[in-house]
């Protein structure tokens, strides 16, 4: 695909130039196929097509969720896209329940979990990436292996554990956001650590060395140099952690039984009676509303994800 593009235009503007300004480097005189100006389609247009296809692929099942949300009959069936008698009834019904409270709980839990788990993961990833110590590979491997144990079995053990915790320390027991928060921190050292370790590995060790020579401590290297360099992946990981917490249902449903303590995922499932598929419309409406902060957060983080790098990793 990149063969079609003249070499000069694959250069991203360097940070000095104001963004968006395309400057043609005169030194790269290579024979080009087709005119430089025309061929927008060749350069960019075909990308739009791919983008639209990807978009369509991603969105179309969601349209059914939207359809169910607008359908007062509220059943899950993909036979009709525009339901008969579409209305916003489901949304109003949603606010009759404790949905606002659940939403708030989810946001608090999501943001706190994402932030702290991001911090823990990145610290651990730094440790695994930069230091060589006995048990390093064993540690990495065990993080992975623990994940492979079926969760539905560990639930009984977790329940017993938290029953004791609730007796001894109620503020972090059942039906508290902070107890669930701690439980989620157990998973902080998981896929995300592996993800970030990979990125830490791409940052050359010479950077660390030169900083050390300048007298920086390991913490200063970590916070001052490494973290800013991997900002995009931090943003991505934070977003993924947030999404993961917002959508987590299995453990939360066991942990949070009181209405005012529930997260949105648990509360919404409670609206749908277990086997009868009634009220699916309200559930769909809630789901859509829950997706809004996720998309909003993504918009906010896009700046960091695509911020581009000073890239000056290899300065020589």
């Amino acid at each position: 695909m990149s063969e079609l593009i003249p070499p000069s235009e694959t250069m991203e503007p360097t940070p000095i130039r104001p963004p968006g300004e395309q400057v043609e480097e005169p030194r790269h005189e290579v024979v080009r196929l087709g005119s430089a100006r025309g061929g927008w389609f060749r350069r960019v247009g075909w990308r739009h097509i791919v983008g639209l296809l990807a978009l369509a692929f991603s969105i179309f099942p969601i349209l059914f969720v939207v359809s169910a949300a607008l359908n007062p009959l509220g059943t899950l069936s993909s036979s009709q896209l525009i339901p008969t008698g579409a209305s916003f009834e489901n949304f109003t019904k949603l606010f009759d329940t404790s949905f606002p409270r659940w939403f708030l709980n989810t946001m608090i839990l999501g943001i706190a979990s994402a932030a702290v788990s991001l911090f823990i993961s990145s610290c651990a990833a730094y440790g695994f990436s930069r230091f060589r110590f006995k048990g390093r590979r064993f540690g990495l491997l065990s993080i992975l292996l623990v994940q492979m144990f079926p969760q539905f079995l560990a639930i009984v053990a977790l329940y017993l554990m938290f029953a004791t915790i609730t007796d001894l320390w109620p503020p972090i027991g059942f039906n508290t956001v902070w107890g669930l928060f701690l439980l989620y921190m157990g998973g902080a050292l998981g896929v995300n650590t592996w993800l970030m370790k990979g990125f830490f590995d791409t940052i050359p060790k010479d950077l660390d060395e030169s900083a050390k020579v300048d007298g920086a401590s390991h913490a200063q290297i970590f916070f001052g140099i490494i973290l800013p360099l991997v900002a995009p992946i931090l943003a991505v990981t934070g977003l993924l952690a947030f999404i993961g917490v917002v959508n987590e249902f299995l453990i939360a449903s066991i942990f949070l039984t009181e209405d005012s303590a529930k997260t949105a995922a648990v509360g919404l499932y409670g609206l749908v009676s277990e086997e009868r598929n009634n009220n699916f419309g309200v559930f769909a409406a809630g789901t859509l509303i829950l997706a809004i902060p996720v998309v909003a957060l993504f918009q906010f983080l896009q700046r960091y994800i695509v911020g581009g790098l000073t890239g000056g990793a290899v300065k020589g």
Partner: protein
Amino acid sequence: MKRKLPIVRVAVLLAVVALVVSACGGGGTGGTGGGNAETSGAQLTIWVGGGPSGEATKKLGAAWGEENGVNVAVQIIPENLQTQFVTASQAGKAPDVVMGAHDWIGNLVQNGAIDPIQMTEDTRAAYEKLAIEAVTFNGQTYGVPFTMNNIVLFRNTDLAPQAPSSIEDLVATGKQLKAAGKTSEILALPVGPIGDAYHINPLYTSGGGYMFGQQPEGGYDPKDLGVGKPSSVQAYEKIGALGEKGEGALKRSITTDNILSLFTAKKTAYMISGPWQFADLKKTKLHYDVSPVPPFEGGKPARPFITVDAAYVASKGQNKLLAQEFVTNYWSTPEVNLALFKASPNVPALTAALEQIKASDPLVVKVAEAGRASGEIMPSIPAMAAVWDPLGKAEAAVIAGANPNSSVSAAGKAIQASLK
């Protein structure tokens, strides 16, 4: 940096502050953290499943709580209520009252999770006989029933004015309608890719099959499994004839997810489902009627499963006194039954309540009558849990056209193996 921080002093100061704060906090929580029962004010915790019924329970619980000065906490557990209740019970965190289906009783009893209930003769007599039978296990009554559901045949009266007298009659009419282009499906009976033994039971029993034999003193006998016996194979031969390779009345692509939309969109004149559909059907302007699921011509009576929802007293609850009071004296009143009915149209289990809704909801009463006439109580013995999955899969295979003998025998063998 050359200016030296008074490190040691700062450290000591912070440490002291931290200790003091934690000691105060710890003292506070230590006091209330040791015991978790409310010593001020009476407390009652109720667990119930989700949906409109759960919401109604909340209101009813609050009303009782206010009247009696008790703090009632109704908690809605969206998934796996039974499993969570048993786990919580074992961990010492059981609620006081739990609402659930009657077929949980066997499992709850074997885990020591619920207590038997002593009902007065008057209370007992106020209920439908079948409802009381459903909540009886090993000679003891375990729950106070409040709904009694069974499936029936829903019929679009515009398309099929007469109730069919037999399955063959239904299929014939359905085929006529399909040929005339008025409908696209003969019948909406939920099957799904892995089958549904609950909805096929009327046909299964009419064809001669049975689940478990009866013990002499009442109750089901787990040693007498009907699946795998020749009678069950015969029944499935008849069912197979209606399947995808036969009449095309039974299809695996029809599931609980789409029967309602098929029926309301008039793609089929017949639907086999339960009273829970009434709420949504009211929203449409469909003309429909209900009648008992018809049997095979010349076959045994078609017996739908009767499922009863009941309130149970948890063995390991903290407030058994109030739990017993709530369940036996409050939950058994007609007012409560009717309030629950208004929230979710399940057939009430109290005879008096059923009488009261005769005028406003005749269809619900029809469902009850169908149940009374030929319903069989869904077995609540623990062994029943092993039956659903293999039998459902055998059903799906037979409807797809597989040999009934091998499918049903295999199911029987698998069930026997897991019961060992």
